[in-house]
Each structure stands twice: as C-alpha cells, then as structure tokens.
C-alpha cells in the first residue's frame, strides 16, 4: 500500500480508523456464521426452532456488520439510536400484524 499520507487536517476529521485485522476478523466471523446457518438448516429440529436459530444467527451477523463495517461502534450515540430505532419500528409492524392474525380465531365468533 503506497501513498499513506495523512495530513494533520485530515486526521482531525477522522474519528477512528479500524485496523485491517479487525475487518478481516469480522469477515471471517461472518463467513463462519453463514456456514453455521446453512448447516443448522440440516438439523432435525422443529419448524419453529429452525426459524428461531436462523433468525438469531442472522441478527448476530447483522449486529457485526452494523457495528464494525458500518462503524456504528465508533459513532455518536445519535447514530446508535437511529440504527436501533429502525429495528424497533420493523418489529412494531411485524409484531402487530402477526398479533392480529394469530388472535383471529380466539373468540369462536364467525369472522372475528
């Protein structure tokens, strides 16, 4: 890698330069988790367990990508709030939607 110039002014606007090693480590972790997801799908467990496992691993991967590739770990708290907030909002939509459908037949009244 040539041209590794870093002037004083440029330095002041950079908060944190993540090392190459860190990036590679996260990348390796992501690949391992990816293989784990696929292998887990071959396990003889129940349907809901499959979904749970797959989503858990997906969430871990997502957290790693957000924290390190997207630099959230080194960012201002406001960025954290925005990132977490969007996930909360997704959960809201999915949660209420599924709750409606799940509770549809509870009253044994036709159409309710």
């Amino acid at each position, binding site marked *: 890698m040539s041209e590794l110039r870093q002037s004083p002014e440029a330095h002041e606007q950079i908060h944190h330069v993540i090392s190459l090693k860190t990036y590679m480590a996260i990348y390796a972790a992501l690949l391992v988790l990816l293989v784990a997801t696929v292998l887990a799908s071959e396990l003889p467990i129940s349907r809901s367990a499959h979904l749970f496992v797959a989503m858990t691993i997906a969430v871990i991967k997502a957290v790693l990508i957000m924290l390190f590739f997207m630099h959230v770990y080194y960012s201002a708290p406001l960025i954290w709030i925005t990132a977490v907030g*969007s996930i909360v*909002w997704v959960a809201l939509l999915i949660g209420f939607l599924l*709750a*409606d459908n799940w509770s549809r037949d509870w*009253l044994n009244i036709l159409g*309710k």
Partner: protein
Amino acid sequence: MNASASARLDGPPEDYLTAGSTVKSWLLTSDHKRIGVLYLISVTAFFIVGGILAGLMRLELMTPKGDLFASADTYNRMFTMHGVVMIFFFLVPAIPAALGNFLLPLMIGARDLAFPKINLLSWYIYIIGAAMGLYLLAQGGVDTGWTFYTPFSSMYSNTRVVTAALAVFITGFSSILTGLNFLVTVHTMRAPGMTWFRMPLFVWSNYATALVMVLGTPVLAISVVLVGLERFFGFGIFDPKLGGDPILFQHLFWFYSHPAVYIMVLPGFAVISEIIPCFARRPIFGYSFIAFSSVAIAVFGFLVWGHHMFVSGQSMYAGAVFSILSFLVAIPSAIKVFNWTATLYKGSIRFDTPMLYALGFIGLFLVGGLTGLMVASLALDVHVHDTYFIVAHFHYIMVGGTVTAYMGGLHFWWPKISGRMYPELWGKLSALLVFVGFNLTFFPQFILGYLGMPRRYFEYRPEYQVLNVMSTAGATILAVGMLMPMVYFLLSLRGPKNAGPNPWGATGLEWQIESPPTTHNFHAPVVVTCDPYLYSPEEAEREYVHAQHDHAS
C-alpha cells in the same frame, strides 16, 4: 465575517426574492426560502384542483337522486380524486414544505437546511408525482377511494390503478427526503446556544412530523407497489382465491395512513404554537409539555392504525388493543389544547387575522378530536364507520385543523415571506367566512352520519336532503373564504416591501432579520442566549443584539 460587512451604501441589500430573477435561478435554486415559495405555489394549485372536485361533489349531493353526473361511477372517481389530490398533493406537503422549508433554518439560526440540493430534488419529485396525478385525473381518475382497498383495486377496478399507485409512490419520496432533511437539520445545524429547549415549538412539531414521514411513508410505498404488481402481473398477493389476504393490504396501508394524519396535523400544531403566544403577548404555557407531546404523538401515532379496520375482519382482540391505544394517543393532543388555552388566560389578546385562525383552530380541532375519541370507541365505530360521521370527523381535523392553521400561518408569516402586509380587514373577513362556512358545511354531516347516511354515495334517502343542502350552502361560503386570501395576497405583491422586520412584535430569530430575508439569512453568526417566547419582544430583541455584540467582540 462580522456585522460591518453588510454596510452597503448603494441601496437596500438584495433579498432572496430579487437575488437572481431568471427562471433558471428559481428552478435551480438551493435556497430553502425559494424552495418554500415554489412549494407554496404548487400546493395552492393542487388545493384548487381538489377544491373544485369537492365543489362538484357537493353540487351533486344537493339532491337525493343522482342527477349531475351520468353515473355512480363518475361520482366514485370524484371522491377518490378529491381524496388523493387533497391528501397527497396538498395536505401532506403544505405546512412542512411551504412554511417549514422557509422557516426552519431561520428559526434555529442556520444558513440553510442540511441538504439544500436534496431539498430542491424533493420539490422536483413532488412535481413529477403530482403531474402524474394530473395526468391520471385527465384520464378519468380512479374509482377505488383514496384508500385503494383490495381486492377491488387490485383485481376488479377498470380504472388506471397502476398510474395512481405510481403517482403516490413517487410523491412519497418527496416526503421522505423532506423529512430526512428536517431531521438532520434540527440535529446538527442549530446555532450555538440554540439548545433543544430554546427552539421554537414550530421546530419541535416539524421534527416530529419529519420522524413520521421517514418511518411511515416507505410502508405506503410498498403497499401501493404490491397493488400495482398484482394488477400488472397477476400475482395473487391480495387475491383470496390464491390464498391472499385483502386485510393485509389494509394493515400495510393504514400503517402509513394513520401516521399520515399526524403528518398533516402536527405542523398545524406547530403554527398554532407560534401564533398564540404572539397574539396573547404571553410566553407559551408548558413549553416542554408541548414539545414532548409532539414527539409522543409521532411515536404513539404508529400504534393505532387498526382503528380504521374495526369492521374489516381483523381480530376482536386486535381491535380492542387498537381502541385503547387510540384513546391514549388523544392525551398528548389534549395536553396541547389545554396549554394553548392556558396561554390565553390573562393574556392581552389581539384579534388580528392569524389569531382569528388560531382561535378557530382550537375550537374546530377540539370538535374533531372529541369526535375522534367517539370513533376510537370500537362499539360506536361499528355504527358510524363509513358514514358521514367519519367524513365530518376527519374534515374537522384536516380542514378545521390543518387548513385553518395553514391559513393562519400564511397570514402570520406573509410579511416575512414577501415583505408586504395583506389588508387586515379582508383578512378578518376571510377568517370569518372560513369559520362560518366550514361549520355550516361539516356540522350537518355529523348529524347525517349519525342518522345513517353512508359516505361515498351519490344518492341518498330524501329525508337527508335538508342537511345536505345546508352542507352545500356552507361549502359555497367556505370556498369564497378560501379564495379571498389568494386574491389579496397576490394583490399585495404589487405594493412596496415595507412590512418591516417585525410587524407583529413577535419573538423568534426569523423576526430579527429583514423582511424578506437576504439569501444567506443572517448577516452575522447567530448566538442564542435566551429562551423562546420572551414576551415582551423588546426584551428578546435586546438580548439578541446583545448576544451578537458579545460574540463579535
């Protein structure tokens, strides 16, 4: 840059209106004030289109039989297009884009919004979407209702649903970009000393609105895209024969469209929070309560959408939960109304035109809000759903609330935007006509709905005629009241720009600079040291000048 840089001896400094008078300088501007004016012109045009559609509907409804239009089909297209045009091309952008774009940077002491070019892009996207809406209208419109319920819209309607879906989809991006701009601006562009709790409440409410725009609009986008896909490709997403669920569409649609009504009303709150303290000559009562309630409304507004679906087939448990949450979401709105009223108490009230509109707002929004509580109650809504009761309820909020606040805001900030004053007598007259006309139009509709007249019908039982005629008469008065300001605002532009920087004696950074402002807003970097709503304004101005001197020295 210090204050002496503005000492020019060759005439008054160029303001934003005269800095560059070519069409290109307007169409390629990145000045938030010019973009605000561009929006003002565009939304007014669409307001007139929507208003004409409403007028035609009211004309038809004067008689119990369907005699004005050839068929019920035409009437269906009328009310659908009235809804689509008014909501997507007028109400959603009106106060945030026309007034908010202009005022937000001024109120926080910034030179522009965070992303001026994206601001302009947002206007162009709006124009493209709205033009597509006009094209749609010319092609006969759609007849699905502005709510596009499936499976009618996705499978059976013979109108251009895909075009409508596309128009709404495109316009949604304009909303998202404006919201994004506002959010970032409020977070990062406040002048030194302008802490969150020194910001005018106008900024707080527009911030809350922006939150809703960014989080809600994309879900509308996906819901109309799915309808478009189903029509275009024949996918059965909402087709019961293929196992699809029409109620899924309603969930996705209302997930946006309920928060959308808060997009429409929160900026109205924003304007009222500025007008009331100024014309009561008192600081606002309960500043932090109003600020927090704005954000609370934005957040809780996302939890109540199922109250539009009580009779759709959604589960009773979900219905009950949505009903309770809808009651809770009324609390922050009520807090605001209490606080505005408390601001009036022992105030020195001046009944200028903006104040007339603001007082009208409080009364009309109160009625709209209380009837909202009535329909939030599941048991009652079963009876009045899809009747004129609902129509009256939301018009009290949208017109009695938002449009009234919008007119009040236009009158209040007209001197700042144009540098001219409007004629006060005509202003008061128009406010009166709007108030009387509005009530005459929509109050009878509460009664009609309660008596059982369904909405979206162009024929009705003869016993409903008297109330319908009253409603149409009111609509005529309302129309006159709304058209008058357009005339006298335009006429005022003929006069010289002599309104002065602060004709109302208001506090706020926007009143400390000339009318109209220069392109770069402030002549010296702004430093804020005092709280907002410091009535007396003379004290506020002294503070402002003092702070500038301290900073410059």
